[in-house]
């Protein structure tokens, strides 16, 4: 009875061998490291810009220089967050790939039909939200850097710079929130995959060998 329930609870693809990694998983395996390294690089650069800005403030530097550095620092630092959150997402995709490829190989080694879970809705949400968050953060960070070089030492320009900073601050925070939500859905997908694997493994001894 439990077996029958399990078979109807999951949408699977049937094959005789492991289906290997799907495209997002292959991308994840390839890109987690460059993103991880880029994140560390941007965090370091953001910290340096923050120290330079603090020095300008302490020395009574020009208001436009301080505003320029404020935008540039935020832009660089949040490119770091975009990179590290992307690295986390890719590392989650890599884990899902291990389940997909490894689970298939185990079933094939047991000489049973290979059932592979079709991409769950949470995984599709994970990908869509990750792409949205990535674009939001990158666009906000690039705009910070563009605006940084558009500041003049006039009251109107400085006020514009401040208003732009306030809006972009909200936008990049939203990008972070959506990234965290994407990661939540990615991890929720792992729970579903584990549920499928535990169910499938228990089914294997009941099935006739394929060869």
């Amino acid at each position: 009875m439990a077996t029958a329930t399990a078979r109807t609870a999951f949408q699977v693809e049937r094959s005789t061998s492991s289906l290997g990694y799907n495209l997002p998983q292959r991308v994840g395996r390839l890109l987690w490291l460059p993103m991880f390294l880029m994140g560390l690089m941007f965090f370091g650069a953001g910290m340096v810009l923050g120290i330079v800005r603090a020095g300008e403030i302490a020395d009574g530097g020009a208001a436009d220089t301080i505003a320029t550095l404020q935008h540039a620092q935020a832009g660089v630092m949040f490119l770091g967050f975009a990179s590290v959150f992307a690295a986390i997402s890719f590392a989650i995709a890599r884990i899902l790939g291990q389940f997909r490829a490894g689970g298939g190989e185990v079933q094939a080694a047991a000489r049973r039909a290979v059932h592979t879970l079709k991409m769950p809705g949470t995984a599709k949400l994970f990908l869509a939200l990750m792409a949205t968050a990535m674009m939001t953060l990158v666009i906000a960070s690039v705009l910070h850097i563009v605006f940084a070089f558009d500041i003049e030492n006039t009251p109107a320009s400085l006020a514009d710079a401040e208003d732009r900073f306030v809006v972009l601050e909200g936008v990049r925070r939203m990008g972070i929130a959506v990234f965290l939500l994407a990661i939540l859905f990615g991890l929720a997908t792992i729970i579903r995959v584990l549920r499928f694997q535990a169910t499938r493994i228990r089914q294997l001894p009941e099935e006739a060998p394929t060869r």
Partner: protein
Amino acid sequence: MSALADLVRRPPPDTDPTQTLRIRSAAIAVGLLGVAAVATALVVNILVAGGDAGADNLFWTFGLSVAGFGTLKLAIALVLAGIVVRLWMRVDAVKAALPRLKAEADPGVARHGEIDTPFGRGTLTEKAPGLLPPQAMARIMWKPMIVMGPMLVLAGLVLSLLTTAADDPDTAQALWAWTQGTQFLGEAMLLAGISFLLGTILAGLREGGGEVQESLGLAVKTLRMPTSAKAFLVLMFGGFLLGIAQFVLYGVAAYTDDPATWFAWLGPLRELSLGILLSGIVLALFTIGTVLGFQHWRIKEILETGR
């Protein structure tokens, strides 16, 4: 704390693996609440920039945004707790199925010691090796972190509301400094809690893998701690110490004569601490992927060779 321990308690071996976990749906609901908080703060920020609301609102929108992030991180911690439980169900499933699936073979005499695997150096032992010290620590430490982190984030939200309402500039400066320091210490604790939960997952994989092999009467193959796991520990503790440092330094900035200078470098510093913690989480997830690859390889080996 005991309620948190119940969240990751190993289910009985005969638990039906098809049943769904309520914790997963609860976590998604909590996560959406966090996004709603950040979206509200974004709307108010736009109103402030457009001149439709006063600039003093930016203090509480900061507090609300960080509280939203904290809520999302709490949701992530809940999902990770669900993964810990599901991993135990997977261990019990493998233990139940493998004796009926594996090739019949004489176990022979195993040569215990160092081995090479496609996933790195490992060991071959008669009995399952115990947990590594960081894994044992992770199993204990995730709970206080997950309790204290949200408390600090909420305390910071209250401080941000008080900052908005403060009339005296000195009081506002002190409250604003404590808001930032407190909330980011809370965020650092939440990320440390998530890191410890990832360590708990690694502990479960090591313990479960050994348990399955031992139950079959086979010599136990275990991966040595990968370099990525060692780097994860360095980044995690480095980021967390920086999180504590920024809290202390914001305490100094609260009463300094030159707060603008202090805030200018403390802002990036607190972000750097979270960035380093997040980088550690990347490596923890990478390590989990590596260990899972090793486990699938080992199960396949047992199925094909019976040893």
